[in-house]
């Protein structure tokens, strides 16, 4: 676990009139990690992000950024890409990037220089002097991410960073995010693309109805929801293996789901299989659910009041 904390959120709550958007939420984000913020629409993610950024004030609780209350100086160390985003449509791309860079404390010359560097990297140099309205949605998306990174922040908060991007540009942005993490930066990423969370994020918090539904390392959270089963592929009669209660075809896969009897560990089943000459094993893994399934399960539980 990284030693320093980028964000420390403690028991924050926020209400709009009678509606409690965030309710006693607590979590931490560390430097050098990608932290996924998940939750259904209207769960309170945007309100939480706005409170972290000091756009909104929490009714109760406290938020620390880099170990202290947020100040104007702290804001210059943060990059923010909101979900609903845009730039001045009638202004040249380079000009609007330079302006936003100066608002982040860069000198005009430095902001312009860095903007050109990012435009080059994001393959947008040919559009530097074109109006924002001349750019496709994907191009605007990249320009906005460039604005987020322009001032070399230590923490970035990005909401749905991959929406509107083709696979090639998605890969490019993933590389940029991983690079940022490798340099020790903290990334808070809000997304509904669960597969991206699975392979990009280190830890997550899932918010449902304003409260914390899940929190921890991605693998640990998935393991928590693991079935008492293993998935196998190969040849053999799986029902004859000691400790197997029943079998099922893997949903959407080629394997077979082997449900274990109560008290039987997967290691024990694997050892049994290894001793059987009539069994040829090509794949053996824990039946860990996809994050998507966990998400749906948690949301459904929330709706049912479980």
């Amino acid at each position: 676990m990284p030693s320093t904390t980028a964000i420390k959120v403690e028991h924050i709550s926020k209400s709009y009139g009678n509606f409690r958007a965030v309710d006693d939420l607590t979590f931490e984000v560390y430097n050098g990690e990608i932290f996924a913020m998940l939750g259904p629409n209207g769960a309170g993610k945007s309100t939480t992000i706005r409170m972290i950024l000091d756009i909104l004030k929490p009714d109760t609780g406290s938020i620390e950024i880099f170990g202290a209350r947020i100040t104007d100086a702290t804001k210059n160390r943060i990059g923010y890409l909101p979900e609903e985003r845009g730039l001045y449509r009638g202004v040249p791309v380079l000009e609007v990037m330079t302006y936003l860079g100066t608002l982040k404390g860069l000198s005009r010359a430095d902001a312009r220089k860095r903007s050109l560097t990012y435009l080059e990297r994001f393959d947008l140099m040919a559009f530097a002097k074109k109006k924002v309205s001349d750019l496709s949605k994907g191009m605007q998306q990249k320009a906005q991410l460039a604005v987020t990174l322009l001032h070399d922040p230590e923490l970035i908060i990005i909401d749905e960073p991959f929406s509107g991007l083709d696979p090639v540009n998605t890969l490019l942005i993933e590389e940029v995010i991983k690079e940022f993490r490798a340099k020790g930066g903290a990334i808070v990423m809000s997304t509904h693309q669960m597969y991206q969370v699975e392979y990009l994020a280190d830890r997550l918090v899932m918010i449902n109805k304003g409260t914390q539904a899940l929190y921890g390392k991605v693998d640990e959270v998935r393991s928590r929801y693991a079935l008492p089963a293993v998935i196998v592929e190969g040849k053999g009669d799986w029902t004859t293996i000691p400790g197997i209660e029943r079998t099922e075809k893997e949903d959407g896969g080629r394997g077979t789901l082997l449900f274990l009897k109560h008290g039987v560990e997967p290691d024990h089943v694997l050892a049994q299989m290894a001793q059987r000459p009539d069994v040829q094993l090509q794949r053996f893994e824990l039946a860990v659910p996809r994050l998507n399934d966990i998400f749906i399960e948690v949301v459904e539980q929330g709706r049912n009041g479980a």
Partner: protein
Amino acid sequence: MAHMLTVFLYELKRNFRRPGFLFTTFGVPVLLFLATNVIGDLAAQNTSINSTDPEAIQEFTEQFDPTMSPNVGLVDLSGVFGEVTVPDTWQRFDTDEEARAAIAAEVIDLYYLIEADYLETGDVITVVPEFQMNAMGDSTLSSIARQYFSQGVDPDIAARIVYPAIYSEENLTLTATVDGKVNEDATFLIVYAFALTLMVTLFMTNGYLMQTLIEEKETRLVEILVSMVRPLHLLAGKILALGVLGLLQIVVWIGGMILLVNIAGGQQAQNIGEAVGALGLLANLQLPLDILPILLVYFLLSYLMFAGFYSVISAISNSMREGPQYAVVFMLPALAPFYFLSLFATTPDAPLVVFLSLFPLTAPISMTARLVVSEVPFWQIALSIGLLALTVVFAIWLAARVFRAGVLLAGNVPKLKDIPAIIRG
């Protein structure tokens, strides 16, 4: 404060480059200046033909005859024009019937019928086959008549016969009636010009303010901006930038007026007056430069007042369709003085005029109009500025209460019943 300065500089640059601003601020005065000079030159040419040279008359006829037709007939029942030299292409007819037949045969396009009692009445009928707007002019015939009547007369006296007087006006006091109608018209023109200048500048700059604010909401750029800049710093930067541009526009326009009157206000305006009566009033204008500082105070206060109200509207509007609709609430009262501008010129102390110049929403245009045409009691100016200043404080306070992240980021327009809660915070 650093953010406010950054926003100020950017908005100043961005809005200065707007084609609409550049054209209105610099293009309109330049066009007006050019138009005045071109019209003046044309008018000078038009009114200086008093030559007795038939060739000059012929040339003049071809170039400036309002009928633009060389095929003109002349029926002189008075006998006065019997020996007058007319252009070669003109035809004389003895009777009206002969001339009518010539028109019917398309030999001539029109003819002048000089009545038998012309010397007593000056009556001349222009007969045309059908309605022709341009046939209403008679400058060719008039020139011929002047040339004829001034034969043998001293050239200077002849010139005075043609131009008995070239008027200019020295306005001893702004309220003095030197020449009843002309002075009144000139006063109205100056009132109108100042009121229009103030109104255009106020609504153009505040319109841009609203446009930039709502654009940031529409594109959702506002969320990025308020994550970096405090909403009030953002607003203050914009208000200051557009205020400076408004001030620049006022200075350019008033400077343009001064230039126009000083350079084109003399003989050129007199020339225009000969040809286009209303514009000739420029010759009579005297700009009240001593009240310019008070006008600037009114501009600044009224700009801040409307900026405050427009910011409130922008904060609760989500599109450029909604904003101007709400702005009408403030715009209509502000424009009300325009309906009574003639009253400002004729009776600047009328109770309605006094009320309009004290009521904050109507005061900027009303007091501006009054100040340029009459002396306004000091207590009225002080009360008007005081009330306006209080309204500015209220408008800015209101803007500060409403222009907050929570309202800016809201996806929908608040209902009327929600407004008090928003103001309370």
